[in-house]
């Protein structure tokens, strides 16, 4: 079997880094803090590589003793390494490592350097706990932990009110999903008498398929999906992710693009044996994913903040993955998760590089012509855009193609889902190249010539010699660009003649998730090729349209915008969903808690009762005090009065 790396070492290293930097980081130079943070992650990455290298056919389970033992309820500290968690651990540590290196350059000179790296390392600890956990409860610990780190890092610039608010929003919105997750845990224990993957998953595989939507598996799956929609920013709980871009850019890249937000996809893929036995839940999953993908893509088309476009793109792409899970294409979903981690991290880091060069400017309408001054960023960003647009031979092409194919061909899929995916693919390539052309190609002069819009564009701030980022920031970009370019080949079914290394590697993880009873319909390879060509065509069309509208004839874009002014405004304002939520949920809750709970309950009922009781007591005391006049003869009178009362009482009572 070879050498077995103790699994607990993998998450504990970043924890050690977080503890050291958090407690004593201030005593050391930025260099030392950064080196420690990067070093911990690098070691953890190497250990994950080793562990995955020696991973056998069966999942590796390591138990470190009991955690909770209450009667028959027993939960252990145990880690679980199978191909699925192996892939996740590699992505988390690998992409995390590159982003950490980048952040060393990006955060240089910013305040809170050790706080930043402590939080980042802590995030990696929780994320690794999440993906390596051997039972649902330990997974939940990681799940909540990454939420905490996400909150801390979104609100990193806590002096800015909107950043602090965005942190709170992210935390509260994901809590709604976590509630569903928690109930799912209870139901899981209730149904399976265990929370260990090693027991639950085979047991679930032995369940009959639930045909009606009222069985325990369907309920568990839907509740887990609720948790996933919170964490992975799916409709209807996606609203926190666009605001999360207010954190530092490496955070957006690591947490809100590459790793944490894919936790929802991971939990669905992990629970795959449950899902395939609950077709109704599968349909809801596919629907949520497909609708999110399309919906977020349309918003991404008109946003003007570079990081917000990317945030909506992330939501849309995760919707893709969720849709893939919903059609039982778990392998394709995780494949897309990996490629997406590469190119989306790259896009965010590239955007960070641009923002860095322009001194904090994020509005793409004020950018342009950065191609010459930022050559490295330009070329790597282009690679990521092509990958997102799913162009051959970039990684996105393979994963995207697989998902679209499965959406059509899987027994759970259908033409409707496939069309949703296809339109999304077209929109994705359009918005990402709109962003690309506006940022790097159009010269600022042309931008300035565009008619000012609502809110008006200030005259473009002459970028004072935008400069390329230092090598420590460009090297991670190059590494990620190479991965975006080449990462997809491992999943190319045609290159490897029907059995690609990716499917072979990941297959054991989804053995139990074989669709029961149903045999996947055989489709000729020509059909699949035709579908790939079609999606390629759509992507090219999107790019072409973006080229036409923003490079060749910007005037057309303005005319279109003026023509569809109402629609443009609605989409620009994100379909007013935030306003809708504010009106329907936030305002009633705030009003209810301030008027009813605070003023009526707390102030009037509880405090009021106590105050009234105190006031009554003091008034009674004031009255009674007059009996003690200090006058001896009045005391005598009281004594006599008391005696008379006592005697008359006795006389009456006795007789």
């Amino acid at each position: 079997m070879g050498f077995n790396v103790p699994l607990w070492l993998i998450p504990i290293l970043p924890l050690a880094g977080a503890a050291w930097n958090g407690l004593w980081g201030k005593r050391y130079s930025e260099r030392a803090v950064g080196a420690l943070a990067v070093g911990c992650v690098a070691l953890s990455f190497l250990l994950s590589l080793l562990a995955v290298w020696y991973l056998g056919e069966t999942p590796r389970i390591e138990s470190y003793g009991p955690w909770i033992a209450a009667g028959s309820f027993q939960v252990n500290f145990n880690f679980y390494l199978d191909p699925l968690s192996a892939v996740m651990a590699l992505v988390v540590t690998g992409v995390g490592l590159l982003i950490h290196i980048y952040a060393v350059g990006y955060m240089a000179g910013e305040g809170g350097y050790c706080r930043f790296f402590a939080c980042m390392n802590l995030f990696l600890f929780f994320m690794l706990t999440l993906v390596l956990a051997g039972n649902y409860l330990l997974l939940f610990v990681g799940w909540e932990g990454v939420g905490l780190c996400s909150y801390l890092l979104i609100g990193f610039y806590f002096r800015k009110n909107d950043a602090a608010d965005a942190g709170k929003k992210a935390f509260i919105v994901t809590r709604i999903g976590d509630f569903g997750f928690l109930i799912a845990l209870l139901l899981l224990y209730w149904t399976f008498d265990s929370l260990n993957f090693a027991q639950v998953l085979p047991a679930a595989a032995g369940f009959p398929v639930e045909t009606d939507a009222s069985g325990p598996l369907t309920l568990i799956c839907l509740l887990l999906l609720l948790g996933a929609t919170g964490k992975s920013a799916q409709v209807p709980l996606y609203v926190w992710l666009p605001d999360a871009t207010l954190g530092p850019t490496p955070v957006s890249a690591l947490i809100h693009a590459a790793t944490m937000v894919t936790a929802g996809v991971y939990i669905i893929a992990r629970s795959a044996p449950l899902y395939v036995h609950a077709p109704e839940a599968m349909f809801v999953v596919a629907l949520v994913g497909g609708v999110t993908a399309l919906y977020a893509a349309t918003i991404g088309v008109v946003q003007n903040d570079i990081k917000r476009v990317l945030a909506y793109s992330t939501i849309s792409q995760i919707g893709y993955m969720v849709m893939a899970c919903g059609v039982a294409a778990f392998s394709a979903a995780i494949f897309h998760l990996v490629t997406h981690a590469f190119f989306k991290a790259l896009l965010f880091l590239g955007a960070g590089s641009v923002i860095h060069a322009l001194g904090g400017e994020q509005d793409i309408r004020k950018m342009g012509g950065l191609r010459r001054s930022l050559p490295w960023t330009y070329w790597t960003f282009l690679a990521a855009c092509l990958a997102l647009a799913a162009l051959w031979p970039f990684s996105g092409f393979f994963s995207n193609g697989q998902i679209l194919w499965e959406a059509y061909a899987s027994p759970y899929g259908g033409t409707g889902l496939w069309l949703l995916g296809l339109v999304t693919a077209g929109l994705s390539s359009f918005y990402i190249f709109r962003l690309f052309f506006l940022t790097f190609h159009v010269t600022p002069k042309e931008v300035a010539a565009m008619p000012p819009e609502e809110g008006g564009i200030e005259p473009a701030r002459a970028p004072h010699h935008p400069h390329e980022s230092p090598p420590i920031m460009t090297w991670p970009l190059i590494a990620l660009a190479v991965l975006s370019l080449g990462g997809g080949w491992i999943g190319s079914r045609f290159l490897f003649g029907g059995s690609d290394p990716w499917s072979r590697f990941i297959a054991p993880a989804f053995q139990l998730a074989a669709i029961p009873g149903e045999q996947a319909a055989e489709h000729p390879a020509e059909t699949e090729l035709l579908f790939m060509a079609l999606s390629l065509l759509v992507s090219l069309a999107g790019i072409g349209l973006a080229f036409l509208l923003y490079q060749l004839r910007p005037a057309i874009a303005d005319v279109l915008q003026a023509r569809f002014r109402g629609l443009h405004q609605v989409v620009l304002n994100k379909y007013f969903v935030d306003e809708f939520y504010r009106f329907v949920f936030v305002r009633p809750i705030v009003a209810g808690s301030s008027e009813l709970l605070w003023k009526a309950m707390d102030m009037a009922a509880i405090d009021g009762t106590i105050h009234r009781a105190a006031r009554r007591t003091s008034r009674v005391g004031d009255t009674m005090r007059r009996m003690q006049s200090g006058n001896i003869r009045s005391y005598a009178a009281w004594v006599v009065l008391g005696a008379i009362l006592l005697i008359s009482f006795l006389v009456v009572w006795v007789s």
Partner: protein
Amino acid sequence: MVPLSYYLILSAILFSLGAAGFLFKRNIVTIFLSVELMLNAVNLTFVALSYHLRQLDGQIFVFFVMVIAAAEAAVGLAIIITVFRNRESLNVDRINLLKL
């Protein structure tokens, strides 16, 4: 033989006199004597009833009351003397340091 009611009526008269003195007199020594009067009115009742019921309990109570009265007289007179030394007066209305 004198009937029981005579004793009880006399005792009630004595007790009422004592209570009235206790309430209305200002001189502290008079008040003190009124208290003694009340105590002895009660003693008279005890003795009368004890005789009437042919039981000794009442007599024993009387002894107790007399002992208490003697002790009280000793303490009370000592207090009165101290008060007089300090205030140069026996009027209770002027012993009013604690007055509201």
